[in-house]
């Protein structure tokens, strides 16, 4: 069978495309773009949380946060590994990120000002990510889908530890409750922005959905997230900062207000509160680690020469 025909047959049958298969160049480019952004986001996402490791309130919280940040690094590596099956090297992807030619999620361009932000990130940011990633387990590219399955298994821990932090603060002193509310106030809208522009505005969505790379649309995922999260905020006794938020019995969903799209685009264009710091820190860490990467290679070469001598 003609390989192009075979590709369309695989997509139509909801089967997975695997690395050896013929695929349209656009399919490959879309996947590389999406998987790389996803990988970069995991890696950059270590920064806002890493910011609180030394200041976690207890030893237990510190151990949990370290485990979580280590998971983010692992998730980044799963995804770089999936991207590499498309014939691009991890080193090249890192280079593209550092040159500003590939992006990472805007959510990590917001600062983590208090301990409650670590709770809000786990609950809301990881909650939004899970909503997206559960859908992506059905993506048409095999290695990406398998990376999503692996990640989803681990994300549940992330969200639950975050929500538990929020529960403790919400039941705590007045100051602690205020801190939890403040974190929700600051992270709510950026979390909704994680799902991207409205479907009507999203340039990448149509072709991605035809190729079944992206199985559920931005707006549908955002609605799913809002519906799941509102009762969780109510349980905490916290108020979601949206005066237009209300249950719509007719639709069977929550209605919610409009995102500040000016802010959304400002951050995407590099003018968020932390864009510059995040990239500067990432590049600095990469450059400071160069001697370690090179020394490890030199050591390996020397030892293998000694063995064969």
């Amino acid at each position, binding site marked *: 069978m003609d390989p192009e025909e075979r590709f369309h047959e695989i997509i139509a049958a909801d089967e997975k495309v695997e690395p050896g298969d013929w695929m349209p160049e656009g399919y490959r480019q879309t996947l590389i*773009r999406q998987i790389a952004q996803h990988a970069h986001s995991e890696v950059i996402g270590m920064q806002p949380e890493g910011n609180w490791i030394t200041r976690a309130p207890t030893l237990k919280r510190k151990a949990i946060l370290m485990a979580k940040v280590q998971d983010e690094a692992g998730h980044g590596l799963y995804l770089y590994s999936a991207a590499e099956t498309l014939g691009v090297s991890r080193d090249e992807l890192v280079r593209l990120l550092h040159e500003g030619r590939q992006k990472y999620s805007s959510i990590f361009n917001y600062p983590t000002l208090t301990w409650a932000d670590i709770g809000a990130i786990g609950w809301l940011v990881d909650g939004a990510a899970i909503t997206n990633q559960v859908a992506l387990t059905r993506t048409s590219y095999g290695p990406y889908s398998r990376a999503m399955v692996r990640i989803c298994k681990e994300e549940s821990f992330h969200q639950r530890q975050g929500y538990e932090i929020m529960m403790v603060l919400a039941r705590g002193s007045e100051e602690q409750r205020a801190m939890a509310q403040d974190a929700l106030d600051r992270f709510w809208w950026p979390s909704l922005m994680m799902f991207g522009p409205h479907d009507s505005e999203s340039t990448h969505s149509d072709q991605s959905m035809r190729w079944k790379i992206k199985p559920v649309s931005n707006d549908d995922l955002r609605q799913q997230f809002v519906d799941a999260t509102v009762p969780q905020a109510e349980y905490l006794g916290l108020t979601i900062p949206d005066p237009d938020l209300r249950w719509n019995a007719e639709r069977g969903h929550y209605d919610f207000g409009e995102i500040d799209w000016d802010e959304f685009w400002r951050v995407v264009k590099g003018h968020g509160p932390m864009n510059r710091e995040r990239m500067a820190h990432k590049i600095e860490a990469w450059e400071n680690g160069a001697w370690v990467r090179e020394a490890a290679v030199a050591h390996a070469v020397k030892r*293998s020469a000694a063995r064969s001598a």
Partner: protein
Amino acid sequence: MSYSVPKIAGEQDTIVGRSEDHLWSRWEVFVRPRGGVTHVYSESVHAPDAETALLNARDTYLRRVEGVSLWVIPEGAISRWDEHQELPRSAAGQDASPRPLWEAFIRHRRGAQFLHAGSIVAVDARDAIARARDAFLTKTDGVAIWVAPSASIVAADPAEAEMLFEPFADKGYRQATYYDIPEEVGYM
């Protein structure tokens, strides 16, 4: 975390060509899960040598208690066959050259991971693929086969299993069930 970052008006997509430049080489990772009967392909890691590859594989793919055995294979040692290629013929009985041992890995259907199927003797990689097809597949199943010389596999030392796999056993906080979340807030 995930989502795609949208394009800014007028922004061109970065077109990504093919690249294989690695400071650290690539190793394919196989894990036998606790209670599992065989090694399952777990994607790849980069490392300067086999020893580091094992450690990186442990840190990347075994952060929770789920593995009892770990293999890494240098990417270049694996020969790959899939449905788009003609199946090589077995070199059976052609000569008396020495026949090394090969390990065969099979993807039984699209979407599934490669599983270690077993060992075979074969004169070369093509012969190993043909023999693996005969030995481990029925007519209808199997969409891809990998073979690697058994000697190319680096396995974690069983004597070090405790050091490699056990430290995660007492880190219950890595599991979702560690956190008491009330049912009324919904599945999380």
